[in-house]
């Protein structure tokens, strides 16, 4: 599903992850695939609390920190979220998620 901007993100529990500086390393515990997130990806990752909608993450975190136009940030973020969701790294929902639901 292509995430809309009223999308809620949560970190999967089937991963190992560590923020190193402004990058993040993530490994799937299902198939051991490794991901490295750049600073923008890291900002989105850190904000994936299941409660904050993606639109707010983009506006308040991505655009504010990286001085990027909203339209571009939104397109990039949606692409990024889709890829991670496909690999089971992010859990995506159209409503807020509690930790138990993840």
């Amino acid at each position: 599903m292509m995430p809309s901007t009223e999308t809620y993100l949560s970190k999967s529990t089937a991963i190992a992850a560590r923020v190193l500086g402004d990058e993040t390393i993530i490994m799937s515990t299902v198939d051991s695939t490794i991901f490295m997130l750049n600073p923008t990806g890291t900002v989105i990752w850190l904000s994936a609390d299941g409660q904050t909608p993606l639109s707010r993450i983009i506006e308040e975190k991505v655009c504010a920190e990286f001085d990027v136009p909203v339209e571009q940030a939104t397109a990039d973020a949606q692409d990024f979220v889709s890829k991670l969701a496909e690999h089971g790294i992010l859990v995506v929902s159209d409503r807020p998620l509690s930790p138990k639901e993840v």
Partner: protein
Amino acid sequence: MSLLDEMNQKASAQGIPLTAHLDITWRCNERCVHCYLDHDGEGEMSTAEIKDVLTQLADSGTFFLSISGGEPLLRRDCFEILEYARKLGFNVKLKTNAVMIGATQAARLRQLGIEQVQISVYSHLPEVHDAITKLPGSLRRTLEAIGHLTAAGVKVSITNMLMKQNATNAKAVMQLAKDMGVAFTVDPTITPMLNGDRSITQLSISAEELEEIFHTEELVGNVGEFCAPVSEADDDFLEGHSCSAGHTLAYISPFGDVYPCVSFPMPCGNVREKTFREIWYHSDELTELRAVKIKDLPTCSKCSHGSYCSRCPGLAYMEGNMRGPSSADCAKSEARTGIPSAWQTIQRQTQPNWTYPNLVQIKPM
């Protein structure tokens, strides 16, 4: 460059302990003849202390975490520790003899998302394996456990540690691993005891047996490549370090002692007295270790085996000099290529009756 190499490089540049090895106990229900531990359980860190260490490691940037022992499942809080480690986002490997793993434990390990379980199997023959572990029935129990783990979907890797007693069993153990659908590695290095006692190294396989292992395609892959003669040491190599111990790898004992690696028992500090970060970034011992580059090693920097040598600074340390050679790795280089190392050449020319130096007494802090 692979993502893993990239990560290691970034961690190295930033001095981040990307990998940590934590022994949660040295107690064990086996008494392997080659074991480098003394199995003392007095004074182990409590559950709370271990959790605090894990939190500190996570805050320091550690990502890869090996939990081992002794036998870690002898700790009643082992699963609690594993669960806590996973909650902190570590990629967790568990090293165990697996004799205490049944279907329930295997399912739990799967549920926790443990990356891999590493298990030692010494032989496909129970009489050989059990004689090494000194636990009757241990091979049967270990193999049953591997069955439970694979059935539960947990990745397993078998390590086949070679010694005199099982030197001829490596291929059979490899076949056993293949039949069970699990990964396999062979390791011919017997590590001296952490208290400095070298007597167990007498169990090491002979030079001839080592050479045979290194020329067995099933075990090493392309023999021509593996045993290729040496390369010239280039500047990059000489400006580098032997391994990641103390650079991006840390070891913590069940009693809180921090070493560069489990095979490098140089006490750098104790987490019961200082924070891990204080030890990692400010201990005199680690500062000195990190300053040592290959070019600073008097003998090894001039050795023709160069970057092909598996030189372990920990084994060198245990032989009395962390800037010196590791005789076990010299033996491996010679067995691989037929060419003696710089150190071996010197020994043979100058001291035909050379024996090992006095024991290095390693006192934990």
